């Protein structure tokens, strides 16, 4: 039993890396555009399907289809900004939330129309590493390392480039960023494109681990949400740390109980954090 728990914790950490990436995207969009992207997980689902179509049906190498999916999701992010978010920037918060929730309905059912309700996966058999009594799926390890690398690149992008600086400034004070010469409209598009590309990357890392179905995305939106809230909305560092906490908590409790109970525990954490410290448990804001 103890070994099982440790094993679950290890898997939780590995999964946490990818979740951190997903939460980062959601957080970035929230921080900059001040909007809660309800349909974020559905982007991952669509990216997954795209990779599936390219790899399995059109026999494109996995790497290339992943790259195509990343670009396609960036474009989808831009389209979302153009068609849904931008027209609602000055609308009441509730309207923004509901419009993006409408996007969930559109995306999930679109997937249903095109691919049906079946589970689809990419047949890709990677070895499982045995270390003593513990085992680690190679695919999870790749996903974990890849996610960390992506996060590192993102950090460099945000801290070493002019556009990254403009993104951070916009997140803190749009109005003053504008007066500094930042075209905030452009920054919003860049942010949504980056957020979209991230979902493509996450989808690529998920392909050897999961199978996809039309409702695949919703649980990841919720998970990313929980992580963002736990780390503090707009706090990218906090999100990074809490991704691992949530990764461990959910995979350990899934081993000890059932998958639903694990989700319930995660939701309870979310509610408690929202009640007590909506700025997140890791109060400092570092972007």
């Amino acid at each position, binding site marked *: 039993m103890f070994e099982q728990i440790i094993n679950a914790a290890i898997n939780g950490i590995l999964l946490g890396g990818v979740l951190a990436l997903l939460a980062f995207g959601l957080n970035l969009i929230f921080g900059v555009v*001040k909007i*809660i992207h309800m349909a974020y997980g559905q982007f991952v689902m669509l990216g997954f399907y795209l990779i599936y179509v390219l790899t399995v049906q059109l026999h494109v190498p996995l790497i290339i289809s992943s790259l195509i999916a990343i670009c396609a999701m960036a474009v989808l992010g831009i389209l979302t900004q153009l068609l*849904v978010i931008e*027209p*609602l920037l000055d*609308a*009441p*918060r*509730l*309207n923004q*939330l*509901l*419009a993006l*929730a*409408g*996007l*969930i*309905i*559109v995306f*999930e*059912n*679109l*997937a*249903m*129309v095109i691919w*049906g309700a079946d589970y689809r996966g990419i047949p890709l058999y990677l070895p499982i590493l045995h270390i003593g009594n513990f085992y680690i799926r190679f695919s999870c390890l790749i996903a974990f390392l890849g996610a960390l690398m992506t996060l590192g690149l993102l950090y460099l992008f945000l801290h070493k480039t002019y556009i990254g600086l403009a993104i951070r400034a916009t997140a803190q004070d749009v109005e003053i960023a504008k007066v500094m010469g930042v075209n905030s409209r452009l920054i919003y598009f860049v942010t949504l494109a980056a957020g979209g590309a991230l979902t493509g990357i996450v989808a690529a890392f998920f392909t050897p681990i999961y199978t996809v179905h*039309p409702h695949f995305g*919703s649980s990841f939106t*919720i998970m990313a*949400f929980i992580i963002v*809230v736990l780390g503090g*909305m*707009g706090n990218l560092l906090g999100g990074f740390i809490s991704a691992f906490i949530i990764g461990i908590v959910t995979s350990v409790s899934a081993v000890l109980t*059932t998958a*639903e*109970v694990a*989700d*319930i525990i995660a*939701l*309870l954490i*979310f*509610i408690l954090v*929202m*009640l*007590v410290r*909506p*700025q997140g448990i890791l109060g400092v804001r570092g972007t």
Partner: protein
Amino acid sequence: MKSPWVKKLFLLLILVLLVIFPAASPSPYLVHIMTLIFIWAYISTAWAYMGRFGLVSLGHGAFLGIGAYVTALLFNYFNLSPWIGMLIGASSAAFLAAVLGYACFRFGVIGDYFALVTLAVGELVALSIIALRDTTGGSLGFTIRNLGNAPLYFQFSNKVYFYYLSFLFLVFALYLWVRIDKSKMQKALRAIGEDEIAASSVGINIIKYKMTITIISAFLTGIGGVLYAQYITYLNPHTLSGVEVSLAIPFKAILGGMFDMWGPTIGTAMIVSLEEYIRVSYGTKFIGISEVAYGIALIVLIIFLPKGLYGTLKEMKIFKNERRRQYGCNKRKEVILRGR
């Protein structure tokens, strides 16, 4: 429609038309659609009790689900009549609302944060229903035992009874709206909705008023869940609780206009008809295509009717009241954006 008696006459005419509608209707299908509109209009009106004062709940599925499940389980397992079970179910929903509301209002959770907490609670209830699958049937749901014609057990041989029953509930909800508008509570809640800090500084007991309206809203929503479940005779966590339905309720209220008494009803009529129209015209060809069209329609409506259909129409006619409200909203939004 300025003079009150013209308005009253108009309302009376609609009332009469609705009462004789089932007898005159060309098909039972239309009666069925009208019944659905009444039930959901009743629920979204109950939602808007809170929504219009800035208490935006995205978790009313929790109250809907609890009301329906408690009542139906009590009937299926203990043979308790849903007429009595309904009160227990709705009270359970109200109890959850009280706990949730107290926690939120005590800690000063407002705006976005309140919306997200309630969203999580709705999902939590759905997951709990699924997790308790030995009793509730889990994701597959369960069917209410059929007794044939048993009015004492909330079952009718003729669906027309549901038409009138849900109509009565809707009328009651609208009546209660008017009563709330005339009560002391309305002023206090409006003040709170516009500027919570200012309201508390003039001595308004914020928690008390917010709790009251939340509990009323949840209780009525719980009853709405029972109404819907008894009508459909089938319970499923995805249609009665969880994110989807929790978002569908405010959708209806907003698209009608949540600040006006008739808004949620008009919004529901619009959405349910649209849903049915799309389903009938496209739904049979590909599974899911009607939902895609429905989703797109929702987004387009939200973008082009930000104040709801009724709200927009009203704004074109009478200017002064609406503007002040809108100002209040913007101020609130600013508070939200700054993150408390």
